[in-house]
């Protein structure tokens, strides 16, 4: 008899464990519900409204009336597209995996689309030699033709041990100057950037602070965490360094530049960078099967100003052109060589 009671109790336990009873109702997959979740999530978590001066409430007022139960997926996609376009933040995107649709805010930037670069031109017409630092794509180095100037290109800030920079500098030997090319660098992790920059550090400089959102209010941010440059490796390269940038240079690559530009011997040449510093949120999920992501923090310079939406403005501005590249000329590299000659007498 007791056995029967026990088995009955067990069956009741399992039977009662139905999903909605335990978890509560799931948000409905209706256009209005998807809109509300999407807008609200940004409203509470997006970290750059203040830094960029965006008014997210105005976005609600404009777009919410456009959404009703009859709104199609295509229309809702277009609305979300326009909402995040307003943010002009390449760390923010929407993704529909069913249709394989993806849109990142700012990806229609005409300036970004016009940035051109040719590794073939650099390899064949500017470098005496070039080597891969490892099997991982992204690190190449060599020497400029007819000079004692080193060249390093890094296309992202990840996928490799950052300490390899010390090996590369050692391989380049006793060079007079270095051109560090981070044009088209798509970012990665900030700690990677910090470690690479550490091999060029001339001391410990306060370079930026980070504040993450810690509550739903627009001004709810955690206390500042301060970040400093720090010499790393056995020795640091403190001869003249030119860092090449373009508007594609983004995120952790811009953090790398925060480090590098605090050093006396570093000069930025090229175009302004993308101006997207913040780390991104976790992937977010909607009842209609779409996903999205956004920026969650404020990066501030020591004086309290933000470079988000602005980017690093170069010390010397110059942009490549299709015509020049077709002529096997990289205008940014040419200007860098000219700068090193004029400023330091290095050729």
């Amino acid at each position, binding site marked *: 008899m*007791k*056995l029967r009671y*026990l088995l009955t*109790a*067990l069956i009741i*336990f*399992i039977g009662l*464990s139905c*999903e*909605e009873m*335990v*978890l*509560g109702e*799931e*948000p409905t*997959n209706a256009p209005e519900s998807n809109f509300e*979740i999407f807008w609200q999530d940004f409203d509470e*978590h997006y*970290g750059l409204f203040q830094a960029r001066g965006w008014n997210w409430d105005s976005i609600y007022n404009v777009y919410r009336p456009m959404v009703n139960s009859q709104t199609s997926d295509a229309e809702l996609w277009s609305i979300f597209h326009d909402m995040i376009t307003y943010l002009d933040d390449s760390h923010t995107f929407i993704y529909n*995996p*069913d249709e394989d649709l993806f849109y990142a805010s700012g990806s229609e930037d005409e300036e970004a689309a016009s940035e051109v670069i040719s590794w073939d031109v650099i390899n064949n017409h500017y470098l005496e030699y070039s080597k891969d630092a490892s099997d991982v794509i992204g690190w190449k180095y060599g020497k400029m033709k007819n000079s004692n100037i080193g060249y390093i290109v890094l296309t992202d800030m990840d996928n490799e041990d950052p300490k390899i920079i010390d090996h590369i500098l050692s391989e380049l030997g006793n060079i007079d100057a270095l051109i560090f090319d981070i044009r088209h660098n798509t970012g990665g*992790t*900030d*700690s990677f950037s910090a470690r690479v920059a550490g091999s060029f550090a001339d001391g410990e400089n306060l370079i930026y602070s*980070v504040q*993450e*959102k*810690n*509550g739903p209010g627009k001004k*709810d941010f*955690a206390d500042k*965490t301060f970040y400093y440059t720090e010499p790393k490796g056995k020795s640091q390269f403190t001869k003249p360094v030119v860092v090449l940038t373009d508007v594609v240079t983004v995120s952790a690559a811009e953090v790398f530049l925060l480090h590098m530009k605090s050093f006396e011997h570093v000069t930025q040449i090229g175009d302004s960078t993308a101006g997207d510093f913040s*780390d991104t*949120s*976790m*992937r*977010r*999920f909607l*009842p*209609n*099967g779409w*996903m999205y992501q956004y920026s*969650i*923090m404020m990066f501030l310079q020591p004086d309290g100003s933000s470079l988000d939406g602005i980017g690093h403005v170069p010390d010397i501005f110059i942009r490549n052109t299709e015509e020049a590249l077709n002529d096997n000329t990289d205008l940014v590299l040419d200007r860098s060589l000219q700068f090193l000659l004029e400023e330091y007498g290095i050729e």
Partner: protein
Amino acid sequence: MISCLANCYSQESKNELQLKLGYNQGYFKDINYSPLNYTESGLLVTLAYDRTLRNNANLHFLLDFSSGVLSSEVSPYFDALPILANLEIGYLKSLKNTQNLQIRGGGLLFSKADMVFYDDTEAVTFTFLNGLALASNIEYSISAKHQFNSGISIPILFVLARPPFTGWDKEVDENADNPVRLITDGHITSLQDYIGINFKLGYQYRISERFTLTADYQLKYQSTEHRKSLTSLRNQFQIGSSFKF
């Protein structure tokens, strides 16, 4: 957390080693991770050691691990990897000891890591709990070969670590390779922040002096509003065997 099993069959054997395999089915909703409801399924393995002390008290070690898939009805693209690991060390004093009935009560020191990974680390959530739980179990022997047992444990004082408001921050990022730091990076709290109930119902069939077959059902429930609402309930079915020595 409940796996203190009988040793009343054999007065001579003070030690018992158990290995159990089973199936984990559950429900999961963590607003920090997603507004959606998820179901969880996967395999579960448990390794436990019990030692009977003087006065019939029980010293108990347990390690269990489960993993599988966390899925949403909304989209197959939302499938994620859940991982649950639990370590506990307990001492249960004998409260009643008759020929057929054994009742014990005491405490457990435990460390629990409950994590979800979507597309590697594109989305992550976690609940790390380290602390003390109250526990009790009952063993009822029907005959020399058959025994039922049941137990319950409730965490009462612990360090609770949950993701930050934004789900991810520099601290998590910079300590991603330092799990000990993340697991212990919480605050000391109690039932006002987290409710967890682990209930077990088990059956044992003794096949020899030393070997016993076991079948268990466990219900694991947790709920917290810390940072953001999390609720999960797991039904776990296991079979295994124990060896007394």
